């Protein structure tokens, strides 16, 4: 079981967390100007990289969404920080 560092609560068991999305995805809007391809890419296409990835996770027990950088191969957690401005 992995340990994830919530920026607010510290290291906690992975069972307390939920994956939200890959980081860096901006919601395309206004809806009326968004092409079908762009919308489909936003909803369904993920990079799912092998190796280092940046993701948004939710710490369910405190309710905060935050950014985490981790390695999908080694499961090493590189770091995490609270969201602010950028996501």
């Amino acid at each position, binding site marked *: *079981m992995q340990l994830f560092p919530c920026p607010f609560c510290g290291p906690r068991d992975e069972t307390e967390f939920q994956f939200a999305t890959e980081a860096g995805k901006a919601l395309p809007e206004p809806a009326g100007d968004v092409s079908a391809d762009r919308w489909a890419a936003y909803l369904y296409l993920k990079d799912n990289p092998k190796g280092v990835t940046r993701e948004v996770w939710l710490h369910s027990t405190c309710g905060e969404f935050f950014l985490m950088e981790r390695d999908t191969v080694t499961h090493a957690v590189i770091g995490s920080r609270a969201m602010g401005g950028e*996501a």
Partner: protein
Amino acid sequence: MTARRISSHGAGRSIAFTFDGQALSGAEGDTIASALLAAGVRVVGRSFKYHRPRGIVGAGAEEPNAIVDVTLSGKTTPNVRATTEPLVDGMSVRSVNASPTAATDRAGILDRFASFIPAGFYYKTFLWPDWHLFEPRIRAMAGLGRLDRSHEPAAESPAINARCDVLVVGAGPAGLAAARALARNGESVVMVDDQDAPGGSLRHRHADIDGMPGVDWAEAIVAQLRAAGHTVLSRTTAFGVYDHGLVLLWQRRTGLPDALWQVRARRIVVAAGAIERPLVFPDNDQPGVMSAEAALVYLKRFGVLVSQRIVVATNNDKAYGVAAALHEAGAWVMIADTRPRGAVAPHAGVEVIHEATIDRVSGAQGVSSVTVSGRSIKADCLLTSGGFTPTVHLFCQAKGRLRLDETIAGFVPGDPVAGMAVAGAANGAFSLSRALAEGHATARGASEAPRASSPDDSYAIAAVWPAPRGKARQWIDLQNDVTVKDVALAARENFRSVEHLKRYTTLGMATDQGKTSNMNGLAAMAAITGRTIEETGTTTYRPPFVPVPFTVVAGRRRGEFFNPVKRLALENQHRAAGAVFREYGGWLRPGWYGKGKPADEIAREARQARETVGILDGSPLGKIEVIGPQAGAVVDYNSYQTLATLKPGRIRYGFMLTESGVIYDDGVVSKVADDHYVVSCSSGHVGGVVLRLEEWRQDRFDRRQVMVHNSTPEWATLTATGPRSRDLVAMLALGVDLSDEALPHMGFADGGFSGGPARVSRVSFTGDRSYEVSVPTGKALALHLAMMEAGRALDAVLLGSEALLLLRAEKGYIIAGKDTDGTTMPQDLGITGPRDRRAGEFVGKRSLFTENALRDDRQQGVGLTVADGEPPLPTGAHAVETRGGARRSIGFVTSSYQSPVLGRPVALALVERGLSRMGETIEFVHLGATRRATIAPVCAFDPEGTRIHG
């Protein structure tokens, strides 16, 4: 076998037990295996596939044969390893794969057909005509122990969390030296060992360390560790290494249920020892063929001499010490050494045959003679040592890679794994002095290492690997009945990779996970395919190291603790009123009241609620407060329908969509003030709705300008619904003007009750005039009393969830997730206003305009009617369309009830193009039966909606 308990061993109190019905006795401190050996039992079970008689081979977790069912106090635990299970007074032990007993198994005849059931037999033979024809009989024949279905162990195994600087696995010389040094360095230590006392090999191979006997040295270190506050666990197996330094331990506790330890360690020292592997020769599975090291364990720890006439076959020096000890204990012993010469001299009186080959063993149900290099020797026990295989499982689970060490003829850890050290025999260090030094070195810069004052046992080895020998059957995997010929067959059929070898022959797949067989198996494959052992490689090591009972893994998270239900504050009151409870959306709620037939009680409640007034516990309905200057913006963005235009004191119904435009939930939102909204979602969706609000609040809005709070548990809500509901609420004296002008449908007002606040909301899920009365949870009991008292004069009825579900279905009110599925969008329910007219952004908006969303053949929500006198349609029945002889599903029934007030069935369904098919009669199929139903508006009762104001 002429095994016996030697008199010099001060055997403890006698312990009575039975084996296959026969009364026997063992001694205190025995395992089941040592007691069986001492009692002279040779055949302890039958093999899995051929039902060949098998005896005890090992003395620990590696044992392939001695698997037994144990009954104690009337409860049977299947598949217990006899070599690791302590003997307990009154145990009834039964062999597995055997009927009636291991000695007289009827299916033993299967072995005569062995040549017709080689590896891969099942894959090839039962494909035609259909495996399922054969499966029941094969399953009945296979399968180790028998499950006692009446024995469901209580959910009482605790999960214990622990943290430490270093977890030391194994309390043998290396582990003890490591723990001692680490503790002296000031690190916190948890040390675990699967035996009942520390010492590991010191318990059967005597040596002096730091001037005292090894076992005393071991106990002294454990005492020091415990005194200094470290944790030492015996009878505890570290069975799995997981991410980020988590190790799971299975602890057996005397007089207490087993425990699961979840240990987070900064570092792990693996000092798990090594397992002796057998030599392989014809008929080597006969009872009486054992591990040499195991025989030493039985002698030194249990005082059991396995036989009076013993041949020790070996390819290494370690077995010489075994032979000497057995000879000293009074046995006649001969050594058959496969090498031209050994590095140590044999004990006086022990004959050695060099360059020996074990041609075969003879005997019925056990060895009676051994043929060594053509010479027949009368002996009823053949001990073999093919060398030792380091126990590298935890290292490999942590993704460590192995390298072959030719000097020990075994795989040892290669490049180190971060956070893990391997020491002692597990690292291929088979001498005591090296084990102590390696253990000590795991603590950097520690003081003086412990020193062995006895000379090291030599471990010079000349590898001997299994190779085909004519027609003879040479067993590699005893538990799964895999022979050298099976390996050769796999190679011939091109299953040459070890992973294929494993799955095709089942080698190493039994409950012992090939602890004694994997090395021999892959070496045989290497020899047969002309590759090196290193090229052939090992299979993947996965947890658990030993079989761990599911009761331990599941712990207390079973039954009602698996996914605990939420409970109502008024549960006891409902129970006293005769409620039958069911789970709805994670809440335990009254399904109906009364002891009659459920359908009758539900119909009674529904009918009476339409006539007078029903009282329903609506506490689980979500009450999520959104507060702050941006509260309106947050709820608006999360809603399909516009909410910002709502006036304070008013309520609006709406959908919450996913980003894919699918209806996630429906509910009502009350506006308390411009900066205060209450979202009342479905009871089962509260957590999810809070999350969605939070996600957008944090991602899109100024989090300092709005907050979300789930106040559901803080309020108890009792709903009065029906023509007399206003009369009932009036009697509660809440201080609220209940006139329709002051409190219209979809309005709410705040009053007081019993010295606290009360909120009355006019929202209806039945189609009748309804009032939801909410008070702080602490006042639930008082409100319930007051409402029941008021209801008495009005002939009120208690309404369970089932009757409510029926009443709302009569009105065509949906349950999100029941009457909608993962494709349903608002337009599919005919609600297109916001999509067509709402300006600005909201969650899921873009998805409502995709090509798929705009298709005209989407499944749409409709009602259904059936012909007079017909029963309700089954929920889930498929609407079908037959075109060109092909039948396909065009939708399904989502809700279906017999309506007591209408006297006919009502149903809701999702049907392709349903909204444009009003009046059309279509076919529904369910479990082979076909019905017909006519598409109708969703609302079957009071379509004008007058009762909501009536």
